[in-house]
């Protein structure tokens, strides 16, 4: 039997523990609602909270719960979205996935370099035995894309909406992955005609990845094709080119190769915009910028020659015989 004195000591000990815990937790709680001015001050006082700063201060649940492993999950969900894009017809780890190195839903946006080789229709290969042959009747066994009719060849192109939940989850888990924003915005805009949501996604992407030339390219496309705002599109694309020039020297060789694809898209789009506006000289300049980064320089050169020829025709009436 415990004496009343023991109970009193236990009570005091509990009170001290509660007070200590509260004192420990309070600054962490304050992080959830700090204004920018007080952040540095609190971080100076409680340097041990620095690792918590990014997660709790921004209310990022995934960061707290998963840490860096969230990027791995984010990639899984991105692949899951591509699997939905194929209505479930997707290679497993046992199949030949050379035709699925780049997600088709990303490659089809035209803003990502396509690294796929091999046969996308027949990654399953010839049937291996009767069990394999029989089993192929019980899972998706035909290559289709959701925006081209889907599994039953009857669906509308807006069925591509089905990839969006996985893309959203992927971007929530890894806010630094630029491709998730551009792919989401492209399909929202192109196939679902949901321009406001697409724009919101791109702006969120810019907030999380400031200076991303991929997002700026997609934002320029949105302004040019959906808002028909040429001035704004030009400004955005030109900003994209500036950001690319700034980032390019710091990229790895492989990243540089991938980024050249975006730079080519930016410059050719700018050239087209200038050509539509009648600024042929400016268009030629953009095409000349595209020349060193293009995978098909011959085609770019042909376009340059054509534009130069047109410029020559413009000046032809002003020419006077020398003699």
């Amino acid at each position, binding site marked *: 039997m415990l004496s009343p004195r023991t109970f009193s000591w236990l009570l005091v000990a509990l009170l001290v523990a509660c007070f200590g815990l509260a004192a420990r937790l309070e600054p962490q709680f304050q992080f959830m609602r700090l204004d920018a001015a007080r952040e540095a001050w609190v971080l100076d006082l409680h340097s041990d909270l620095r690792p918590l700063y990014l997660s709790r201060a921004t209310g990022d649940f995934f960061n707290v719960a998963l840490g860096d492993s969230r990027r791995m999950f984010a990639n899984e969900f991105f692949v899951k979205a591509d699997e939905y894009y194929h*209505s479930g017809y997707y290679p497993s780890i046992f199949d030949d996935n050379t035709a699925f190195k780049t997600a088709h839903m990303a490659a089809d946006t035209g803003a990502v370099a396509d690294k796929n080789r091999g046969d996308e229709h027949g990654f399953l290969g010839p049937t291996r035995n009767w069990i394999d042959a029989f089993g192929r009747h019980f899972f*998706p066994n035909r290559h289709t894309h959701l925006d081209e009719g889907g599994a039953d060849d009857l669906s509308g192109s807006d069925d591509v909406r089905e990839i969006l939940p996985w893309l959203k989850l992927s971007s929530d888990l890894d806010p630094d992955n630029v491709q998730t924003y551009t792919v989401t915005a492209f399909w929202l805009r192109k196939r679902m005609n*949901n321009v406001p949501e697409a724009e919101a996604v791109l702006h969120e992407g810019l907030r999380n990845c400031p200076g991303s030339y991929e997002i700026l390219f997609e934002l320029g496309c949105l302004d040019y094709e959906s808002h028909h705002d040429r001035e704004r599109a030009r400004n955005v694309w030109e900003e994209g080119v500036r950001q690319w020039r700034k980032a390019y020297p710091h990229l790895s060789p492989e990243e540089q190769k991938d980024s050249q694809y975006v730079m080519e898209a930016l410059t050719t789009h700018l050239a087209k915009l200038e050509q539509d506006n009648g600024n042929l000289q400016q268009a030629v300049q953009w095409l000349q910028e595209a020349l060193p980064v293009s995978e098909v320089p011959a085609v770019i050169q042909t376009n340059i020659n054509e534009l130069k020829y047109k410029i020559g025709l413009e000046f032809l009436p002003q020419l006077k015989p020398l003699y």
Partner: protein
Amino acid sequence: MNNISAVAGIVIKELYRRKDFYVLFIVTILICLVMASINIYNDAHIVRYLKEICLDLIWVSTLVIAVTTTARQIPAERENRTLLPLLAKPLTRVQLLLGKFLGCWLACGLALLCFYIFFGALAASREHHWSVLNYFQAGILHWFLLGIVVAFALLGSLIFAAPSSNATICFVIIGGILFVGRNLDRVALGLGAVGRNLVLALYFALPHLEFYDLRDLVVHNWPTVPWTYFCLALLYAALYMAVFLIAACLVFRRKAVN
């Protein structure tokens, strides 16, 4: 047949008196409703992720119900000392086993029916149409898969000492077959001669439960499976049920009941 149906009736009553099914069913409904309430870019027609989550939950729930219900049947009778009085009545050991199997399988069928009605309602609320034939094929194949699982768990309950160990082993084997069963022959190619032959023998001997998994076809609105292959798959399942039940009868015939 009367004896078998009487035993089966008791097993079915046991299912709806226990809380397992209700808990799993309510948890499935709650998770699906929460997932359905998520706003994804203001689009109310997105449905496939919901169908997939719902079907995944149904698969897990029904496998849990099938394995746990079956695994405790014979051990519970033995523990409660009701096995001997039961066999003292005009009831053979084979009839008892068949009754237990039929009861568990029918109970799983009833649970499956409830789950699939909910799934159909959930899908129809977004898609505004019912792919009745697809759901029928998926449901029947799923039920036959559970038949194989029930027969296998019944055999396990006669071999393994405790229901918990039997259930764990059943889950591991079923999970293994569902995840890598289709590609075991390819796994075999990377092994040495002995290992390859062993794995290949397993590949041809194990029941290929992946035939009964039409989740991808249902989620992505693929056309129905050709009916010839559908019927052949049912036949294949019936064959494996028979194999496991015969094995269970042979084991039970020599088993001491006291």
